[in-house]
């Protein structure tokens, strides 16, 4: 197992390197730079600024510098949010995004798995159709519709939770983001779970369990669900990586100081270091979560062994 972990780590390095390289050049071939704005800056001043940020050097040179700094764990300063380094921005925002994302994932998994199982057991009955309808609605209603509706209903009309902001970071501020972020995931999880549960319930070993007169609870929970949950886990890994690294829409609408906003804002601002930092962050999370998924597979399914 240790060897396997090591090997996975080793393969992660070239992957990360390629991702950084592709993103870096992609970013730099895009027209415009971080200091092009509505009010043009006199060319001499712009030259000064670009010099300060080494943007006047050839791109390959900037690339090598970036790689060098990255190897030391230095993500560089943000070009747009000038008071902070990229690492500082992440250290502030990531814990908030991750907290919301993790709860959203838990919410999606717990409720989604439950609904999926119920639907599978009641296949082609009204309960099943209700879950399918909910799941489809969840994945077809855009977040930017759900979020403002939530704000309107729970924040303004019922006054149950704040409309937005992070405030002191209490759960009441997080509940809206968690629900809107989790809902589409919940829908997918429920669908996946329903499908794999139906398949699992038709498996031969379930027939054996029934033939042995085992209780429904044992058949469904112990035997059918454990195997059926595997596809959900493979889905949940990358999805969790995505949720934890934040969502631009949810963070913008709820005005949450997470890291999800940075990705698109920084790309549009050509805030090169922040974009690259986000790329690295997302890639690392994706790689780590895929690894966790593989480990979980090994825990749940004894046939899976890694050397």
């Amino acid at each position, binding site marked *: 197992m240790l060897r396997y972990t090591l090997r996975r780590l080793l393969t992660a390095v070239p992957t990360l390197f390629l991702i950084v390289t592709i993103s870096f050049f992609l970013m730099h071939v*895009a027209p415009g730079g971080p200091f092009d704005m509505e009010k043009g800056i006199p060319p001499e001043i712009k030259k000064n600024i670009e010099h300060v940020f080494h943007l006047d050097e050839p791109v390959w040179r900037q690339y090598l510098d970036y790689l060098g700094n990255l190897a030391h764990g230095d993500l560089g300063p943000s070009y747009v949010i000038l008071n902070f380094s990229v690492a500082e921005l992440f250290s502030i925002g990531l814990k908030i995004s991750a907290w919301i994302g993790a709860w959203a994932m838990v919410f999606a998994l717990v409720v989604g798995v439950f609904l999926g199982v119920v639907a599978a057991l009641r296949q082609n009955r009204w309960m099943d159709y209700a879950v399918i309808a909910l799941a489809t609605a969840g994945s077809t209603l855009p977040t930017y519709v759900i979020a403002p509706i939530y704000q309107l209903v729970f924040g303004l009309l019922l006054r149950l939770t704040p409309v937005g902001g992070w405030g002191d970071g209490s759960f009441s501020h997080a509940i809206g983001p968690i629900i809107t972020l989790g809902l589409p995931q919940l829908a997918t999880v429920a669908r996946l779970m329903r499908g794999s549960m139906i398949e699992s319930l038709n498996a031969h070993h379930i027939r054996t369990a029934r033939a042995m007169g085992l209780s429904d609870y044992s058949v469904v929970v112990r035997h059918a669900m454990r195997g059926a949950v595997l596809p959900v886990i493979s889905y949940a890994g990358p999805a969790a990586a995505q949720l934890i690294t934040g969502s631009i829409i949810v963070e913008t609408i709820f005005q949450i100081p997470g890291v999800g906003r940075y990705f698109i804002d920084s790309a549009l601002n050509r805030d090169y270091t922040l974009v690259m930092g986000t790329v690295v962050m997302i890639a690392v999370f994706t790689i780590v979560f895929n690894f966790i998924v593989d480990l979980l597979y090994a825990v749940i399914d004894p046939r899976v062994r890694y050397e």
Partner: protein
Amino acid sequence: MSEALKGRSLWQDAWARLKQNRAAMFSLAYMALILLLCLAVPNITGHDFTAQYPAYTRVGPSLEAYPKAETLQGELQDVAKRARLEFKEWHQKDGRIFLTVASDKPVDERVTRYLDRSDSFKDAKVEEKSADGLTLVMSAAAKQKYFYFGTDALGRDLLTRVFMAGRVSLAVGLLAGFVAVVIGTIFGSVSGFLGGRTDEIMMRVVDILYALPFTLFVIMLVVFFGRNFMLMFIAIGAVLWLDMSRIVRGQTLSLKRQEYVQAAEALGVGAVGILRRHIIPNMLGPIVIYLTLLVPQVIILESFLSFLGLGVQEPMSSWGVEIAEGAANMEVAPYLLFIPTFFLSTTLFALNFIGDGLRDALDPKDR
């Protein structure tokens, strides 16, 4: 030569099974209806999808014709204001609207054009002019307009625009979905078919692309192709093929092990023949299923980009654009959100059911 009986192919079987699936058939019919509406409605509403009626910005859905009696006063006042004249009085008689205006200078008779220019009136003429020319009475007929779905913030007919947007959304979905499927199929089948080291390297490429943040790609594409959204979605399709290539590779690998492929090899059939006659036809099922799931994905993606202001360009629209606009106007004009959301959601619903139905129909072991 003996007369040959007709066989029933798997496709026909699948179709027969699909016909049993009420949700899928209803969805198919619904999709057909939506397609028809998208093609036909913008041409028959009598409104151009770009036409703005400043007098009717954000009027609610209604079956009655505009102008309505309660809005006429305001519109006539507007006309007077724009003509820089003083609004005196108005009344309705014999189906015509009479407007009296005044000024401290003699009133130019051309002012009737302001009435004609307005969205509500036509056929304006001068009825009466006071001797000093300072007061003028004009009359005009009401121009009847119907806005069954209401109008948007710029006073454009939502009915026309929603279906115009539908055209774009569906076109974008189909186009990008199709591109993704083509690339994914080619890449996946080549990788699976060749196998060995080639397969390993090709799948490694897919792994790396998977870990690349997808949104960055899309944003870069938006930056590059901002000019042409169709091109942009072709490019987005070119990014979305990863899942497809994995599915196809898996299929190819399992098909390659099928005895009928080995039989073909034993017959001496070449790689092209095997791919064409044995592998691709048998892969079409999963591909079609995936396409029906990919199209909604692209439509949602497009709406996400539109929400960020990176989607299609004016005066064109898409459901995503309409919904984003609707979300901004949610409190004052909820129908602007509700109507496009209804069409987007139901279409995605229908596509999902069709996809599920196709899966059940093409892969009968799941039944």
